[in-house]
Structure formats: C-alpha cells, structure tokens
C-alpha cells in the first residue's frame, strides 16, 4: 500500500507542478519567460516536488482553519456580541456538527466521487481498485484528522473549551466521515444508488442543513446538538463506529464496481473544462423552432441590404435567445413594480411611519440594478456563437466592424430603453403608492438617469465585445483586460451604493460619463475594431 501511496503522491505533486507552470505561463510579462520545455525538466520538478508536497500537506490545516473561521467562528462571535442566546462553544459545535457531520457526510464520499486521479490510477495505470482505494482513503483520513486537530484547537480554546474537547471533536469528525464512506459504499452495493450524484437530494440536505446550522444564532429556543456531541459517551460511540467502518473498508472486496461507476469515460465531472464549455454553449443554444422551415416561411420580408439585412435575419432567427431575456426582464420589472406598489399602499395604511420612500433615495441603487437588468452579455455571446465566430474569419467582415457595431448598438439600445422605461415606471409607481411626491424635478432626473445608465451598459457590453473580443471558440473568456474593465465598472456600481450623492449631481455625472464613454467607444471601434474583432 505504501508503494501505491507514494505513486499517488507523485501523481499529485507532478500535476500540481504542471498546473503551477501552466498558470505561470499565462501571467503577463513573467509568462513569456517561461518556456514550454519547463514541463520536461524533471530535475527541476524533482527539486520542487518536496516543496509542493509540503504545500499540499499544509493546505489541509490551513483550509480547515479558514473554513472554521469564516463559516463557524465568525457567525458565532458576531451574533454573540449582539444577543447571547446560547453558549458560544455549544453554538460553534452545533454549526460545525451540522455542516461537517451531516451535510458533508451526505454530499461528499471519496469512495464514489469521480476524480481524475482515480481515472488515471485505475483505468490508465491499471492499479488494483482495492489497493488504490485503501491508499487513497487512508491518506485522506489521516491528513483529515491531523489537519483538524490544530484547527479545532485554535477555535475551541478561543471559545474557552479544553484541549481534550478539541481533540475528541477532531477524532469524532474523522471517525464519522469514515463511517459515512462505508454507508455510501453499502448503499451503492445494495441499491446501485450513488448518493453524491443525486443532486436534488444533496442540495436539499445542504439547504436544510445550513438553515438548521445557523437558526440557533437567531432563535433562542432552537435546540443545538452541541451538548450531545460534547458528551463523552457519544464521542466514544462515534469513534468506535468509525473504527469498525475502517476495518470493514479494509476488508471490503468489491471496490472494482465502485471505482468503475466513478470513472466512466464520459463522466462530465472528470472533464470539468469540457463541462463548463458545454454549459456555456448550452446557454446560447438556439431553439430548433427558430430555425424550422415553417419559421423561415413566416418571417417578414426583409428589404434591407448588407449588414442591416444580415442582422435583421440574425435577430429574427435568434428571437428565443435575444428577445426572451428581454421579455423576462420586462415581466419581472412589471410584476415587481405592481406587487411592490400594492405592498407599499397596504403597508402605508397600516404603519405609515415605516414608509418614507423618496425618489432621491433610489438614485444610488440605479447603476447596480441596471447592471443586472439590462440585456447585453447574453446577446453578445449569442452573436459571437451563432454569427461572428464564423464571419470574423473573413477580412471583409472584420473591416466593416464599425458598421455592424452601430447597427447592433441601435438594436440593443432600443431594447434596454424599454427596460429602462419599465424600471422608471415601476419605481415612480411604488414611490407614489408609498405616499412619496412624484410631481417634482427629482422624477425627471430619475428617468433621465435610468435612461442614461441603460445606454451606458448597452454601450459597455458591445464596446467590450468589439474591442476585447473575449470569447474563444469554447466561449471561455480569455482576455484578462476584459475582466479588468468589467470588474472596474462593477466596482464603480457598488461604490455608488455606499456613497450617495444629490440627484442633480448624480444625473449630471451619469450623463457626462455616458457622453465621454460614447465618444471614446465610437472612436475606438472605428479605429481599432477591424483589428481586435476576431476569434482568439
């Protein structure tokens, strides 16, 4: 088993080093200096493998520290400062028990999880499934236990617990998870069910589990499992069950079936990049009905010419992709506007002091709201995948980038102005229902701002698409500059929420930004898009 374990660790460290070199090559400036021959430098790999192994080992306690701090310790201390409902240590153990025992016990089981390493070891390297699983499980749970001891010690001691409590908790969680591995295996053996792949059940447990985990933070009466799990009798029982399960796993003779079911060649989990690419393509899949002969016959006569003709046909034949998100957004805004207005009206009659909705309160939320509500990214993806991916291979099409940019910009601005109108109407109606004054200068400014921001986002999506053309043939975003600009705009939207400014200033700033962006975008697309608008 030790030989198998050493081979597995060699595969892991080697994969980690290759991955490290791969991403190093992607870095600007530094990347160019890293030659592809680096992958063949076994001497270099050997010398850094010890370091990589140490990092892989260290990752276990570090990740557990992070998990315990963010998901368990932080919520417990935050709530405890406001209203101490339960003992902090008991709350800590409760949340930890629900997430790490219950939720993870259902959602994660190494014996049946598809893993590239499993595929490589058993299918390609022809290792014995039994020996592979023994080695992998032993390594996993020793590192798991050793990682949890220091991590739990830190937080249990911080919450005034004892060393013994921390160690016993670490032993319990490791033992429990070994027991879960065995239960998953037996369930598969008896029924053929691979529980970790039953997504509906798994997500149900995750959802219910997280609610049960955090509910005692807010409800004093809600019972916690903390006291039970801290009882020595329960801890000993779990440890004994874990030891029994470990012996059963060591004696188990049918790992072949369990490994086979987790290493199917077409399992999407074994090819995550392929799965992402497929999902991306599915997101812009045109409906067959849009392309049917019947639909073609029913299309209105198109009297346009050139690029206008092409785009008219494109938008008609991709209405499910282009118009559906647009209609959905309109429907959502209308429903939210009407529902919100009724709620405001009713609540205003019951508790008028709670409702002091003023138009000027809405301005700072407009950028972030419209960044979600305007259509643009899906349309650009659809244009790329169904039209530009082929036509940008032709020089005439690239040369005319400015011309089709303008045609598309007009079409998309039209759609987004409809959305802007709906949002303006919904907000005005809700403010009126809440008893706010809408017959004022702020209403004009609000409508102007919404329209300007809608134009801004249309321009933004299309400009980024033409200048950075971020998509590869798999629809992966490859251009780092695209990320940087998109992130900067998102950050600015968030910034606006936290730093509200008077409506008149807000509207003036927004309109000024739109004018400047328009001028820059038009000039950039006119001068550079024929070079930048191509398939990477």
């Amino acid at each position: 088993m030790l030989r198998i374990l050493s081979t597995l660790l060699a595969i892991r460290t080697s994969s980690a080093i290759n991955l490290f070199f791969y991403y190093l090559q992607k870095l600007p400036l530094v990347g160019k200096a890293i030659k592809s021959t680096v992958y063949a430098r076994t001497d270099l790999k050997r010398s850094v493998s010890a370091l990589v192994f140490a990092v892989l080992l260290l990752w276990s306690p570090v990740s557990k520290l992070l998990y315990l701090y963010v998901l368990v310790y932080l919520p417990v201390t935050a709530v405890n400062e406001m209203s101490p409902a339960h003992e902090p240590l008991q709350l800590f153990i409760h949340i930890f028990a629900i997430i790490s025992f219950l939720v993870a016990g259902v959602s994660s089981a190494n014996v049946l999880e598809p893993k590239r390493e499993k595929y490589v070891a058993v299918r390609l390297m022809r290792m014995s499934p039994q020996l592979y699983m023994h080695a992998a499980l032993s390594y996993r749970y020793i590192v798991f236990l050793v990682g949890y001891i220091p991590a739990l010690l830190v937080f249990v001691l911080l919450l005034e617990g004892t060393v013994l409590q921390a160690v016993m908790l670490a032993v319990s969680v490791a033992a429990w998870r070994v027991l879960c591995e065995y239960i998953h295996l037996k369930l598969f053996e008896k029924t053929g069910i691979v529980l970790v792949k039953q997504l509906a059940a798994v997500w149900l447990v995750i959802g219910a589990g997280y609610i049960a985990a955090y509910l005692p933070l807010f409800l004093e009466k809600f019972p916690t499992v903390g006291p039970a799990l801290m009882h020595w009798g329960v801890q000993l029982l779990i440890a004994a069950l874990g030891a029994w399960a470990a012996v059963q796993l060591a004696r188990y003779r049918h790992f072949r079936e369990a490994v086979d079911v987790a290493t199917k060649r077409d399992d999407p989990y074994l090819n995550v990049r392929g799965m992402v690419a497929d999902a991306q393509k599915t997101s812009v899949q045109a409906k067959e009905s849009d392309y049917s002969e019947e639909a073609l016959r029913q299309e209105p006569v198109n009297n346009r010419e050139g690029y206008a003709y092409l785009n008219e046909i494109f938008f008609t034949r991709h209405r499910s992709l282009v118009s559906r998100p647009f209609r959905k957004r309109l429907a959502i805004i209308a429903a939210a506007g009407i529902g919100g207005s009724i709620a405001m009206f009713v609540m205003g009659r019951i508790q008028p002091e709670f409702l002091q909705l003023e138009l000027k309160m809405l301005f700072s939320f407009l950028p972030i709201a419209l960044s979600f509500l305007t259509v643009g990214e899906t349309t650009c993806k659809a244009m790329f995948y169904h039209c530009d991916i082929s036509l940008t291979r032709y020089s005439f099409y690239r040369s005319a980038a400015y011309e089709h940019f303008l045609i598309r910009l007009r079409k998309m601005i039209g759609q987004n102005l409809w959305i802007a109108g709906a949002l303006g109407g919904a907000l005005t109606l809700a403010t009126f229902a809440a008893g706010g004054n809408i017959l004022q200068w702020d209403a004009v400014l609000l409508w102007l701002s919404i329209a300007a921001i809608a134009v801004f986002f249309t321009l933004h999506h299309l400009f980024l698409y033409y200048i950075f053309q971020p998509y590869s043939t798999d629809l992966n975003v490859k251009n780092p500059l695209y990320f940087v600009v998109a992130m900067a705009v998102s950050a600015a939207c968030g910034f606006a929420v936290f730093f509200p400014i008077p409506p008149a200033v807000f509207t003036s700033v927004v309109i000024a930004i739109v004018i400047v962006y328009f001028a820059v975008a038009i000039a950039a697309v006119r001068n550079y898009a024929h070079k930048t608008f191509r398939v990477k």
Partner: protein
Amino acid sequence: MQLVLDKIAKRFNEKQVLQDVEHRFEKGKIYGLLGRNGAGKTTLFNCLSGELKVDGGQALLEADGATHELREQDVGYVYSLPILPEFLTGYEFVKFFIDINRRQNVSIDRTIDQYFDMMSMAEEERHRLIKGYSHGMKNKLQMLLFLITKPPVILLDEPLTSFDVIVALEMKKLLREMKHNHILIFSTHILQLASDLCDELVILNRGRLSSVSPELLRSPEFEQSIVELLKDESHAEDT
C-alpha cells in the same frame, strides 16, 4: 501577376514554424503545398490571409508592373473545415455578400441564381439553411464567393479530401477554370491529387519552402521521391 513571399518568418513560443520562407507564385498555375502534419502549411496560409501576424518578412503582389503588399482583401481563403454563418440560407448569404461588395464597387456581372448555377447547386439547396449543408456544399459556397470577388490569390487548405468522387471531380474542373485569373495554392496530404491537379509543387519542411521540379511531378518516381524527401527530415511536431 505574381505573389512574392519574401523571408516570411513566424514562431510560436520556442518553435520556429516558418523560417525565411521565400517563393514566387504565378497566375495561371495551380500550386500544391505539401508538408507533413504540423509542418506549418496552415500557419503559412493564416499569415498570408492576415489571420496571423508575421514575425518577419512580407508578402507582395506584383501586377501590371506595380508591386504592393498583399492585403487581406487580395486573398480568398477556403478553410479545410468550411466556416460559414449557419443561420443563413445559401441564397441569403450570397445576397448579403453581393450587397456589401457592390457597395465597394466590385463589378457584379451575374445574378445570384446565375452564380449558383455556375456551382451546379440546385434550386432547393439554395434556399436551405447552411446549417444543413454537407461539407461539399459548404466548400462550394465558399468557392462561389471567389467567383464574385475574384481575389487575385486563392488559398485552399486541404480541399477535396472529404468529397465524394462526383463533387471532387466538379471541384477539380472548377479549379482548373479558375486558375486562369488567379494564383491558386492548395495544401494537401494526398500525393495523387497533387500530381493530378497541380502545375507546380512546393514542399514546406523545417519551416522552409522548396520547389519540386516539374519533370519530377510527371515522372513515375514522383511519389517515391517525395516520400524520401519528407522522410529525410525529422518529423515536425504539431503547431
């Protein structure tokens, strides 16, 4: 009219794919470009068509005593896997293509249907979505575009390889007709096709182009000589 390649160089990371590529291609001839997998044939075509930037050298077009650098619009490129907008019908695509070329003062001397007739594409095929076209039909449609724009240089990346006998014969006939007005270069692996269709053969090996003498092209030892020539060199890796 001649296409002059002057010391064209292209490298991907450490791999020098094209190294001072030099050659003259003349109008009225069909050139076959031979090379092993990964020798850089498609890279050379991509450089000539403007898809890729060259790292060094240039491609020039000499016509009527004047010389200018080869522009993207001087080149018609038929890809090995035809790339066409599949949401259009063949007819719509040709109409769109004629529209934009007419605006650029390209003289269009035929109607859309006449162009389709030239390519022997049946009436009902013209009004079907390109999505449903066979590989051969798509290639025909790409060739049809060059009948409209008449680019001086036409590059064909491994054409005819997946055609049935009839379509391959039609395409050969078409290429022979077209060569009088164009410089035609096609890359292929198939030696028989090269000897059958080409007036001249050039070999891309280790990043350089070399001519095969026309006598050898017609000689019985042709195949054996080419195989020996390519075998001598170490097998290039895929680019």
